[in-house]
Protein backbone atom coordinates (compact mmCIF):
# COMPACT_ATOMS: atom_id res chain seq x y z
CA UNK A 1 0.00 0.00 0.00
CA UNK A 2 2.68 2.43 1.10
CA UNK A 3 4.86 1.57 -1.91
CA UNK A 4 1.91 2.18 -4.21
CA UNK A 5 1.03 5.45 -2.46
CA UNK A 6 4.51 6.94 -2.69
CA UNK A 7 5.77 5.46 -5.98
CA UNK A 8 4.36 4.73 -9.43
CA UNK A 9 5.76 1.21 -9.67
CA UNK A 10 2.26 -0.21 -10.10
CA UNK A 11 1.27 2.21 -12.85
CA UNK A 12 1.34 -0.53 -15.51
CA UNK A 13 -1.16 -2.60 -13.46
CA UNK A 14 -3.29 0.50 -12.98
CA UNK A 15 -3.23 1.28 -16.70
CA UNK A 16 -4.17 -2.27 -17.57
CA UNK A 17 -7.01 -2.24 -15.03
CA UNK A 18 -8.23 1.17 -16.13
CA UNK A 19 -9.20 -0.15 -19.56
CA UNK A 20 -11.25 -2.95 -18.00
CA UNK A 21 -13.01 -0.85 -15.37
CA UNK A 22 -14.25 1.86 -17.72
CA UNK A 23 -17.65 0.13 -18.25
CA UNK A 24 -18.32 0.39 -14.49
CA UNK A 25 -17.88 4.16 -14.63
CA UNK A 26 -20.02 4.32 -17.76
CA UNK A 27 -22.86 2.42 -16.05
CA UNK A 28 -22.48 4.52 -12.88
CA UNK A 29 -22.99 7.64 -14.97
CA UNK A 30 -26.31 6.44 -16.39
CA UNK A 31 -28.43 7.85 -13.50
CA UNK A 32 -26.99 11.35 -13.97
CA UNK A 33 -27.49 11.13 -17.77
CA UNK A 34 -31.06 9.93 -17.29
CA UNK A 35 -31.58 12.79 -14.83
CA UNK A 36 -30.33 15.32 -17.37
CA UNK A 37 -32.51 13.81 -20.08
CA UNK A 38 -35.56 13.78 -17.80
CA UNK A 39 -34.87 17.35 -16.77
CA UNK A 40 -34.66 18.42 -20.39
CA UNK A 41 -37.73 16.43 -21.42
CA UNK A 42 -39.88 17.78 -18.62
CA UNK A 43 -38.89 21.40 -19.25
CA UNK A 44 -41.59 23.49 -20.79
CA UNK A 45 -41.00 24.77 -24.34
CA UNK A 46 -41.50 28.39 -23.23
CA UNK A 47 -38.77 27.96 -20.58
CA UNK A 48 -36.37 26.59 -23.21
CA UNK A 49 -37.21 29.50 -25.54
CA UNK A 50 -36.57 31.99 -22.72
CA UNK A 51 -33.27 30.31 -21.90
CA UNK A 52 -32.32 30.32 -25.58
CA UNK A 53 -33.03 34.06 -25.76
CA UNK A 54 -31.00 34.69 -22.60
CA UNK A 55 -28.07 32.68 -23.98
CA UNK A 56 -28.19 34.60 -27.27
CA UNK A 57 -28.09 37.89 -25.36
CA UNK A 58 -25.24 36.63 -23.20
CA UNK A 59 -23.37 35.48 -26.30
CA UNK A 60 -23.81 38.96 -27.81
CA UNK A 61 -22.44 40.60 -24.65
CA UNK A 62 -19.47 38.22 -24.53
CA UNK A 63 -18.70 38.82 -28.22
CA UNK A 64 -18.64 42.54 -27.53
CA UNK A 65 -16.31 41.99 -24.57
CA UNK A 66 -14.15 39.68 -26.70
CA UNK A 67 -13.67 42.43 -29.30
CA UNK A 68 -12.48 44.72 -26.50
CA UNK A 69 -10.23 41.91 -25.22
CA UNK A 70 -8.76 41.42 -28.70
CA UNK A 71 -7.95 45.12 -28.85
CA UNK A 72 -6.35 44.98 -25.38
CA UNK A 73 -4.41 41.84 -26.30
CA UNK A 74 -3.06 43.51 -29.43
CA UNK A 75 -2.08 46.58 -27.41
CA UNK A 76 -0.46 44.36 -24.79
CA UNK A 77 1.50 42.56 -27.50
CA UNK A 78 2.71 45.88 -28.99
CA UNK A 79 3.83 47.09 -25.54
CA UNK A 80 5.61 43.80 -24.82
CA UNK A 81 7.41 44.06 -28.14
CA UNK A 82 8.44 47.61 -27.30
CA UNK A 83 9.84 46.33 -23.99
CA UNK A 84 11.55 43.43 -25.78
CA UNK A 85 9.62 41.06 -23.52
CA UNK A 86 8.86 37.51 -24.56
CA UNK A 87 5.67 36.90 -26.49
CA UNK A 88 2.61 35.58 -24.64
CA UNK A 89 1.63 32.06 -25.53
CA UNK A 90 -1.83 31.67 -27.01
CA UNK A 91 -4.04 28.89 -25.70
CA UNK A 92 -6.54 26.78 -27.56
CA UNK A 93 -9.12 24.67 -25.82
CA UNK A 94 -11.01 21.43 -26.25
CA UNK A 95 -14.35 20.75 -24.60
CA UNK A 96 -14.59 17.52 -22.65
CA UNK A 97 -17.12 15.77 -20.43
CA UNK A 98 -16.64 14.12 -17.05
CA UNK A 99 -17.35 10.39 -17.30
CA UNK A 100 -16.29 9.24 -13.85
CA UNK A 101 -15.45 10.56 -10.42
CA UNK A 102 -13.36 8.87 -7.75
CA UNK A 103 -15.72 7.52 -5.07
CA UNK A 104 -13.21 8.17 -2.31
CA UNK A 105 -13.28 11.47 -0.47
CA UNK A 106 -9.51 11.21 0.00
CA UNK A 107 -8.52 10.79 -3.65
CA UNK A 108 -9.70 13.63 -5.86
CA UNK A 109 -9.52 12.36 -9.43
CA UNK A 110 -11.95 12.26 -12.32
CA UNK A 111 -12.12 10.64 -15.74
CA UNK A 112 -12.86 12.60 -18.91
CA UNK A 113 -13.95 11.43 -22.34
CA UNK A 114 -10.87 12.64 -24.25
CA UNK A 115 -7.69 10.66 -24.68
CA UNK A 116 -4.65 10.07 -26.85
CA UNK A 117 -6.63 10.32 -30.08
CA UNK A 118 -7.59 13.90 -29.14
CA UNK A 119 -3.99 14.84 -28.38
CA UNK A 120 -4.39 14.89 -24.61
CA UNK A 121 -1.10 14.59 -22.73
CA UNK A 122 0.07 14.07 -19.15
CA UNK A 123 0.33 17.35 -17.26
CA UNK A 124 -2.25 19.12 -19.40
CA UNK A 125 -4.32 21.64 -17.42
CA UNK A 126 -8.11 21.34 -17.26
CA UNK A 127 -10.55 24.02 -16.23
CA UNK A 128 -14.25 24.65 -15.98
CA UNK A 129 -16.19 27.84 -16.69
CA UNK A 130 -15.11 29.31 -13.33
CA UNK A 131 -11.44 28.40 -12.96
CA UNK A 132 -8.66 25.82 -12.90
CA UNK A 133 -9.70 22.29 -11.99
CA UNK A 134 -6.50 20.26 -12.17
CA UNK A 135 -4.20 18.40 -14.53
CA UNK A 136 -4.12 15.18 -16.50
CA UNK A 137 -2.19 12.35 -14.83
CA UNK A 138 -2.98 9.36 -17.08
CA UNK A 139 -3.91 9.23 -20.73
CA UNK A 140 -5.58 6.29 -22.47
CA UNK A 141 -6.79 5.81 -26.03
CA UNK A 142 -10.27 7.27 -25.50
CA UNK A 143 -10.24 8.72 -22.01
CA UNK A 144 -7.96 10.33 -19.46
CA UNK A 145 -7.69 10.67 -15.70
CA UNK A 146 -7.21 14.09 -14.10
CA UNK A 147 -5.93 14.98 -10.64
CA UNK A 148 -7.91 17.83 -9.11
CA UNK A 149 -6.27 20.83 -7.45
CA UNK A 150 -8.00 19.89 -4.17
CA UNK A 151 -6.24 16.51 -3.94
CA UNK A 152 -3.75 16.56 -1.08
CA UNK A 153 -0.91 15.50 -3.40
CA UNK A 154 -1.48 18.49 -5.68
CA UNK A 155 0.12 21.92 -5.50
CA UNK A 156 -0.16 24.84 -7.89
CA UNK A 157 1.91 28.04 -8.08
CA UNK A 158 -0.39 31.03 -7.68
CA UNK A 159 -0.19 34.78 -7.34
CA UNK A 160 -2.46 37.30 -5.69
CA UNK A 161 -4.20 39.30 -8.42
CA UNK A 162 -4.18 42.51 -6.31
CA UNK A 163 -0.44 42.74 -5.70
CA UNK A 164 1.24 39.88 -7.60
CA UNK A 165 2.48 38.17 -4.43
CA UNK A 166 3.44 34.58 -5.24
CA UNK A 167 2.65 31.47 -3.25
CA UNK A 168 1.75 27.81 -3.66
CA UNK A 169 -1.80 26.54 -3.18
CA UNK A 170 -1.97 22.99 -1.91
CA UNK A 171 -4.90 20.62 -1.91
CA UNK A 172 -6.31 19.50 1.43
CA UNK A 173 -8.56 16.58 0.38
CA UNK A 174 -11.50 18.95 0.84
CA UNK A 175 -13.40 19.89 -2.34
CA UNK A 176 -14.02 23.40 -1.01
CA UNK A 177 -10.63 24.24 0.39
CA UNK A 178 -7.04 24.88 -0.67
CA UNK A 179 -4.26 26.13 1.59
CA UNK A 180 -1.44 28.56 1.01
CA UNK A 181 1.64 27.33 2.83
CA UNK A 182 4.57 29.15 4.36
CA UNK A 183 3.27 32.70 4.13
CA UNK A 184 4.89 34.91 6.72
CA UNK A 185 2.78 36.81 9.23
CA UNK A 186 3.68 40.07 7.47
CA UNK A 187 2.50 38.88 4.01
CA UNK A 188 0.17 41.33 2.27
CA UNK A 189 -2.89 39.12 1.86
CA UNK A 190 -6.53 39.81 2.71
CA UNK A 191 -9.76 37.85 2.87
CA UNK A 192 -11.43 38.05 -0.55
CA UNK A 193 -8.17 38.37 -2.52
CA UNK A 194 -8.39 36.65 -5.90
CA UNK A 195 -5.68 34.12 -6.76
CA UNK A 196 -4.66 33.23 -10.30
CA UNK A 197 -2.14 30.75 -11.65
CA UNK A 198 1.29 32.35 -11.81
CA UNK A 199 2.62 30.15 -14.62
CA UNK A 200 5.78 29.34 -12.64
CA UNK A 201 6.97 25.82 -13.24
CA UNK A 202 5.52 25.91 -16.72
CA UNK A 203 2.76 23.39 -16.10
CA UNK A 204 -0.21 25.72 -15.73
CA UNK A 205 -0.63 28.70 -18.04
CA UNK A 206 -0.61 32.04 -16.18
CA UNK A 207 -3.67 34.11 -15.41
CA UNK A 208 -6.35 31.45 -14.88
CA UNK A 209 -8.48 31.89 -11.72
CA UNK A 210 -7.63 29.43 -8.94
CA UNK A 211 -9.70 30.73 -6.04
CA UNK A 212 -10.27 33.46 -3.50
CA UNK A 213 -9.00 33.81 0.06
CA UNK A 214 -11.65 32.54 2.47
CA UNK A 215 -9.94 33.00 5.82
CA UNK A 216 -6.60 33.88 7.31
CA UNK A 217 -5.57 32.31 10.58
CA UNK A 218 -2.73 33.50 12.71
CA UNK A 219 -1.53 30.71 14.96
CA UNK A 220 0.21 32.03 18.11
CA UNK A 221 3.86 30.99 18.25
CA UNK A 222 3.98 30.01 14.58
CA UNK A 223 6.06 31.84 11.99
CA UNK A 224 3.53 31.30 9.23
CA UNK A 225 -0.12 32.17 8.77
CA UNK A 226 -2.78 29.67 7.70
CA UNK A 227 -4.57 30.86 4.57
CA UNK A 228 -7.64 28.97 3.38
CA UNK A 229 -8.71 29.42 -0.22
CA UNK A 230 -12.03 28.58 -1.79
CA UNK A 231 -11.46 27.14 -5.30
CA UNK A 232 -12.94 29.19 -8.12
CA UNK A 233 -13.90 26.08 -10.10
CA UNK A 234 -16.96 24.06 -9.16
CA UNK A 235 -14.75 21.08 -8.44
CA UNK A 236 -17.43 18.58 -7.44
CA UNK A 237 -20.20 19.80 -9.77
CA UNK A 238 -18.87 20.68 -13.21
CA UNK A 239 -19.81 18.19 -15.92
CA UNK A 240 -18.24 19.90 -18.91
CA UNK A 241 -14.60 20.94 -18.75
CA UNK A 242 -12.02 22.53 -20.99
CA UNK A 243 -8.63 21.06 -21.84
CA UNK A 244 -6.08 23.80 -22.41
CA UNK A 245 -3.51 23.48 -25.20
CA UNK A 246 -0.86 26.20 -25.10
CA UNK A 247 0.95 27.05 -28.36
CA UNK A 248 4.03 25.46 -26.79
CA UNK A 249 2.31 22.07 -27.21
CA UNK A 250 1.95 22.70 -30.90
CA UNK A 251 -0.26 19.73 -31.55
CA UNK A 252 -3.60 21.47 -31.41
CA UNK A 253 -2.81 24.99 -32.56
CA UNK A 254 -5.81 26.56 -34.22
CA UNK A 255 -7.81 23.45 -33.60
CA UNK A 256 -9.93 24.60 -30.68
CA UNK A 257 -13.53 23.49 -30.33
Amino acid sequence: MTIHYYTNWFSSIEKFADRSIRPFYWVANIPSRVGQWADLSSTDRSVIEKENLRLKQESLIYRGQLQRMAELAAENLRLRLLLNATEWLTDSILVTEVIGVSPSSKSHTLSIDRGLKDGVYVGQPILDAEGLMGQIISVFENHSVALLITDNTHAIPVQVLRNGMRSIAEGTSDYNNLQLRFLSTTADIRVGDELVSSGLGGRFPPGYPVGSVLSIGKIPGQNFIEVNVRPAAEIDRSKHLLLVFTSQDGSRNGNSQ
Partner: protein
Amino acid sequence: MTSMRYALTVIFSLMLALVLQLIPVSADWLPWKPNFLLLMVIGWVIFKPSQWGIGFAASVGLLADLVFRSPLGLHVFLFVFIGAAPYLLSGWLIYFNFIHRCFFVFILIIFSELLRNFMYSVWGVPVDYRDVPLGAISSAVIWPLMDKFLVNVHNNRR
Protein backbone atom coordinates in the same frame (compact mmCIF):
# COMPACT_ATOMS: atom_id res chain seq x y z
CA MET B 1 -31.78 -22.11 -6.50
CA THR B 2 -29.03 -23.90 -8.43
CA SER B 3 -25.35 -23.36 -7.64
CA MET B 4 -24.86 -21.60 -10.95
CA ARG B 5 -27.72 -19.21 -10.28
CA TYR B 6 -26.47 -18.65 -6.74
CA ALA B 7 -22.99 -17.75 -7.99
CA LEU B 8 -24.46 -15.42 -10.60
CA THR B 9 -26.56 -13.74 -7.90
CA VAL B 10 -23.42 -13.14 -5.84
CA ILE B 11 -21.54 -11.71 -8.83
CA PHE B 12 -24.46 -9.55 -9.90
CA SER B 13 -24.96 -8.21 -6.35
CA LEU B 14 -21.27 -7.28 -6.14
CA MET B 15 -21.33 -5.58 -9.56
CA LEU B 16 -24.43 -3.63 -8.54
CA ALA B 17 -22.80 -2.56 -5.26
CA LEU B 18 -19.69 -1.50 -7.19
CA VAL B 19 -21.71 0.63 -9.60
CA LEU B 20 -23.72 2.17 -6.75
CA GLN B 21 -20.45 3.04 -5.06
CA LEU B 22 -19.23 4.78 -8.23
CA ILE B 23 -22.31 6.96 -8.77
CA PRO B 24 -21.03 10.54 -8.46
CA VAL B 25 -22.44 12.66 -5.62
CA SER B 26 -21.64 16.21 -4.60
CA ALA B 27 -18.96 16.85 -1.98
CA ASP B 28 -21.59 17.75 0.64
CA TRP B 29 -23.21 14.32 0.33
CA LEU B 30 -20.02 12.28 -0.07
CA PRO B 31 -19.56 11.55 3.68
CA TRP B 32 -23.15 10.26 3.76
CA LYS B 33 -22.61 7.80 0.93
CA PRO B 34 -23.12 4.23 2.19
CA ASN B 35 -20.30 1.78 1.65
CA PHE B 36 -22.33 -0.48 -0.66
CA LEU B 37 -19.52 -2.84 -1.57
CA LEU B 38 -18.38 -3.46 1.99
CA LEU B 39 -22.00 -3.95 3.05
CA MET B 40 -22.44 -6.57 0.36
CA VAL B 41 -19.26 -8.37 1.42
CA ILE B 42 -20.32 -8.30 5.08
CA GLY B 43 -23.74 -9.59 4.05
CA TRP B 44 -22.44 -12.58 2.11
CA VAL B 45 -19.95 -13.45 4.88
CA ILE B 46 -22.66 -13.17 7.58
CA PHE B 47 -25.11 -15.40 5.73
CA LYS B 48 -22.71 -17.98 4.31
CA PRO B 49 -19.34 -17.80 6.13
CA SER B 50 -18.40 -21.32 5.06
CA GLN B 51 -18.56 -20.34 1.39
CA TRP B 52 -17.74 -16.61 1.40
CA GLY B 53 -14.88 -16.11 3.82
CA ILE B 54 -11.66 -14.14 4.08
CA GLY B 55 -10.45 -15.07 0.58
CA PHE B 56 -13.69 -13.78 -0.89
CA ALA B 57 -13.34 -10.50 1.05
CA ALA B 58 -9.73 -10.14 -0.15
CA SER B 59 -10.71 -10.74 -3.79
CA VAL B 60 -13.47 -8.12 -3.65
CA GLY B 61 -11.04 -5.76 -1.90
CA LEU B 62 -8.55 -6.18 -4.75
CA LEU B 63 -11.29 -5.48 -7.28
CA ALA B 64 -12.25 -2.37 -5.28
CA ASP B 65 -8.63 -1.18 -5.26
CA LEU B 66 -8.41 -1.47 -9.03
CA VAL B 67 -11.79 0.13 -9.73
CA PHE B 68 -11.51 2.96 -7.18
CA ARG B 69 -7.84 3.64 -8.07
CA SER B 70 -6.89 3.50 -4.39
CA PRO B 71 -3.44 2.37 -3.19
CA LEU B 72 -3.21 -1.32 -4.06
CA GLY B 73 -3.96 -3.31 -0.91
CA LEU B 74 -5.94 -0.68 0.99
CA HIS B 75 -9.33 -2.22 0.30
CA VAL B 76 -7.88 -5.73 0.53
CA PHE B 77 -6.70 -4.90 4.04
CA LEU B 78 -9.97 -3.19 5.01
CA PHE B 79 -12.23 -5.90 3.58
CA VAL B 80 -10.20 -8.73 5.10
CA PHE B 81 -10.08 -7.01 8.50
CA ILE B 82 -13.80 -6.21 8.51
CA GLY B 83 -14.82 -9.47 6.80
CA ALA B 84 -12.90 -11.44 9.43
CA ALA B 85 -15.24 -10.23 12.19
CA PRO B 86 -18.47 -11.85 10.89
CA TYR B 87 -16.40 -14.85 9.77
CA LEU B 88 -14.94 -15.43 13.22
CA LEU B 89 -18.23 -14.66 14.97
CA SER B 90 -20.26 -16.83 12.59
CA GLY B 91 -21.06 -19.26 15.42
CA TRP B 92 -22.81 -16.50 17.34
CA LEU B 93 -24.30 -14.67 14.39
CA ILE B 94 -26.93 -17.37 13.80
CA TYR B 95 -28.56 -16.20 17.07
CA PHE B 96 -28.59 -12.55 15.92
CA ASN B 97 -31.93 -11.17 14.86
CA PHE B 98 -32.49 -8.40 12.30
CA ILE B 99 -31.91 -5.53 14.79
CA HIS B 100 -28.72 -7.13 16.11
CA ARG B 101 -27.42 -7.50 12.57
CA CYS B 102 -28.15 -3.79 11.83
CA PHE B 103 -26.21 -2.74 14.91
CA PHE B 104 -23.39 -5.17 14.12
CA VAL B 105 -23.09 -3.76 10.59
CA PHE B 106 -23.10 -0.20 11.94
CA ILE B 107 -20.20 -1.03 14.27
CA LEU B 108 -18.28 -2.77 11.47
CA ILE B 109 -18.64 0.22 9.12
CA ILE B 110 -17.49 2.57 11.91
CA PHE B 111 -14.40 0.38 12.38
CA SER B 112 -13.79 0.28 8.65
CA GLU B 113 -13.95 4.08 8.33
CA LEU B 114 -11.70 4.57 11.37
CA LEU B 115 -9.20 2.14 9.88
CA ARG B 116 -9.33 3.81 6.46
CA ASN B 117 -8.84 7.26 8.00
CA PHE B 118 -5.99 5.94 10.11
CA MET B 119 -4.27 4.54 7.00
CA TYR B 120 -4.67 7.84 5.18
CA SER B 121 -3.41 9.82 8.16
CA VAL B 122 -0.30 7.58 8.20
CA TRP B 123 0.33 8.70 4.59
CA GLY B 124 -0.10 12.33 5.60
CA VAL B 125 -3.56 12.88 4.10
CA PRO B 126 -5.68 15.28 6.18
CA VAL B 127 -8.62 13.32 7.60
CA ASP B 128 -11.78 14.43 9.33
CA TYR B 129 -12.94 11.89 11.90
CA ARG B 130 -16.27 13.73 12.25
CA ASP B 131 -17.34 12.17 8.94
CA VAL B 132 -16.85 8.62 10.24
CA PRO B 133 -20.33 8.05 11.74
CA LEU B 134 -22.17 9.60 8.76
CA GLY B 135 -21.33 6.81 6.31
CA ALA B 136 -21.99 4.23 9.02
CA ILE B 137 -25.45 5.67 9.73
CA SER B 138 -26.46 5.65 6.05
CA SER B 139 -25.02 2.14 5.65
CA ALA B 140 -27.05 0.94 8.64
CA VAL B 141 -30.15 2.60 7.15
CA ILE B 142 -29.88 0.72 3.86
CA TRP B 143 -28.81 -2.54 5.52
CA PRO B 144 -32.44 -3.74 6.01
CA LEU B 145 -32.86 -3.87 2.21
CA MET B 146 -29.71 -5.94 1.80
CA ASP B 147 -30.63 -8.10 4.77
CA LYS B 148 -34.02 -8.86 3.22
CA PHE B 149 -32.42 -9.62 -0.15
CA LEU B 150 -29.83 -11.95 1.39
CA VAL B 151 -32.42 -13.72 3.57
CA ASN B 152 -34.55 -14.30 0.44
CA VAL B 153 -31.58 -15.63 -1.54
CA HIS B 154 -30.64 -18.07 1.21
CA ASN B 155 -34.22 -19.16 1.86
CA ASN B 156 -34.62 -19.94 -1.84
CA ARG B 157 -31.37 -21.87 -1.83
CA ARG B 158 -32.47 -24.19 0.99
